[in-house]
């Protein structure tokens, strides 16, 4: 790897420079870590310490107390635990689902050429709108309506499909994927709410997991697409000739070689699902409530904003993400493809 700018090792520097570099690094570390420090000490502050202006050092500026921790983990233990478990189950399931499905979809887009006819795709959208309309307007059972819609589409496509000449390409599909992410979630949150209401899945894990999986799919597909594209096709062809099926090639060759991309994508999707607020607000009321909802509830009470309780929740919320980042960061390395092909 050629670097444009090769930084000298800190050990080789002159003593004066060394001190300066360490000073800058120390300052920057403190700067970056300060918000976390602030949250940590706030969680031990009493209401008076918070409201009477900034105090920085525990035992010096103020007397730390465990009252906020006690409140959440002793008095409200079951509520906190329930929200925490909900968040963990939802974020982990949604992350796993979107990474697994998304990477497979992305690989297909990177390696197979799709040419769906534009007219057929358009027909499908029309038929589905029609099916939805019959449900809303005439109260037809949604299962019946969907099945009928699929059947109508199938026969229409068989009969008329080949008359449409214009075709879409992989690029169009890819752009359609990301366009789903460009759309602001607030636009779709009401339809999503109504859909889950129809099938009586509101306030369940499955509803939120499904929603998170779907909104994260475009991100996974877009990020993994470039990783899959960068794998030399020779390797995959060679594995096929060695006797592997397409799926085996994907598992044995493609996934191991794109593991740094997978790790980074997993982390990103996990963080997005873990922190998601808006959709969770609509889709959960009590049983499926997640941590971000719990945090938000703390500044809405009659007691004013409970900074200390919020800090406690934020600290426990950071932990799983940090653990995941530590686990995954060793996979995020460069030069995985070194030695594969000469060129």
């Amino acid at each position, binding site marked *: 790897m050629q670097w444009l700018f090769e930084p000298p090792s800190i050990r080789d520097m002159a003593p004066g420079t060394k001190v300066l570099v360490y000073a800058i690094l120390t300052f920057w570390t403190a700067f970056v870590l300060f918000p976390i420090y602030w949250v940590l000490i706030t969680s031990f502050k009493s209401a008076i310490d918070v409201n009477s202006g900034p105090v920085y050092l525990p035992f010096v500026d103020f007397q730390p107390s465990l009252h906020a921790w006690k409140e959440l983990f002793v008095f409200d233990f079951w509520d906190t635990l329930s929200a925490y478990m909900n968040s963990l189950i939802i974020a982990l399931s949604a992350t796993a689902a979107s990474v697994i499905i998304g990477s497979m979809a992305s690989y297909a887009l990177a390696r197979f050429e799709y040419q769906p006819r534009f007219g057929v795709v358009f027909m499908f959208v029309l038929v589905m709108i029609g099916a939805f309309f019959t449900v809303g307007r005439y109260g037809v059972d949604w299962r019946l309506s969907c099945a009928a819609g699929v059947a109508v589409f199938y026969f229409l496509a068989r009969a008329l499909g080949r008359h449409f000449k214009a075709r879409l390409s992989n690029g169009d599909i890819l752009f359609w994927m990301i366009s789903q992410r460009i759309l602001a979630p607030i636009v779709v949150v009401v339809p999503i709410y109504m859909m889950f209401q129809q099938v009586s899945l509101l306030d369940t894990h499955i509803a939120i997991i499904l929603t998170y999986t779907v909104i994260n799919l475009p991100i996974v597909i877009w990020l993994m697409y470039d990783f899959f594209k960068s794998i030399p096709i020779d390797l995959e*062809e060679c594995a*096929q*000739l060695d006797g592997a*099926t397409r799926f085996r090639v994907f598992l044995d060759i493609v996934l191991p070689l794109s593991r740094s991309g997978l790790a980074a994508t997993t982390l990103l999707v996990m963080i997005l699902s873990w922190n998601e607020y808006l959709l969770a607000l609509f889709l959960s009321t009590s049983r499926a409530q997640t941590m971000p909802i719990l945090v938000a509830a703390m500044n809405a009470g009659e007691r004013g904003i409970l900074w200390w309780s919020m800090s406690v929740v934020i600290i426990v919320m950071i932990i799983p993400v940090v653990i995941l980042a530590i686990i995954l960061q060793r996979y995020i390395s460069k030069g995985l493809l070194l030695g594969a*092909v*000469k060129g």
Partner: protein
Amino acid sequence: MTVVLDAVSKSFGNVKVLHDLSLDVQDGEFLVLLGASGSGKSTALRMIAGLETVSGGRISISGRDVTDELPKNRDVAMVFQSYALYPHKTVAENIGYPLKIRRMSRTDIETQVREVAAQVRIGELLERYPRELSGGQRQRVALARAMVRRPSVFLMDEPLSNLDAKLRGHMRAELKHMQHELGITTIYVTHDQIEAMTLAHRVALLEGGRLQQLAAPKTIYEDPENLFVAQFIGSPPMNVAHGRLDAGTFVIGQDRVATGGTETVSNAVIGLRAEDCQVVAPEDGAIRAQLFANELIGDHTLVTAKIGDDMVSIKAPKEFEAGFDEAIGIAFETDKLYLFNRDTGARIRRS
């Protein structure tokens, strides 16, 4: 095992890259597909491997029609130009991968990997990763991986082109020896005519997606089917000079060369191998020429001369000396010359 291509063609969109290629590769044969880039040779190989679909015609391996089979069901192994080693697997895992897929037991895989690794002399590299190997070593690993499961057919796509010149010569000899020892039918793609001539039992020369000639190296050198083959094979390539053929006499400038035969072709080409010509005094030669340059190669001097507008090369003894622009004569035996129709490129055979 035999490989038979029956009028195989390939089009990408409206571009036809391969025109009705028919080949009949014998069991144990080393067949080289030779051609410049864009001649369709790699496409042909990839179609045999199953990596490219067939636009027309049939392909069969060992008597079985595999035209619509997946690559994994064709029982062929391929060595890629880029070697295509799996970078996340060790050398042993790379070589053992085809066996692992065939659900062979761990101990069997290990014995076979060791055996084949010893055969290509990389026994001590088994625990290394591809990034820790030199070009030549990677080449051997790729070869071992292809050999380990004893395929019906070896396919090789310019396997030596990434090696430096010295190593290439060495690997060439090893490859030839190994193919002879294993007796596995091999189809080998290259653009390098020396590689083709030295390795092949038979050479298939392709140009513009069409088979130009399929013959043993000696035949293809001594009895080229057309002008393209004559000019592609040989180093330096066959000399050509333009003129016209007038009832058995080739007329070039003021010189007339009796060729035998009776054809009359207004736009003809005379072909001569560099080693079949001698440089003589202008009045003794069959064709007069003007010396352009002479280069001492070592065991001979390569003389470049001009006949009209055509440049020709002649191998002269290393003692040969002459000045620039000096008039010379070129002498040759009549049965060593070749005649071609310049318009069609076809060989004009003298009866």
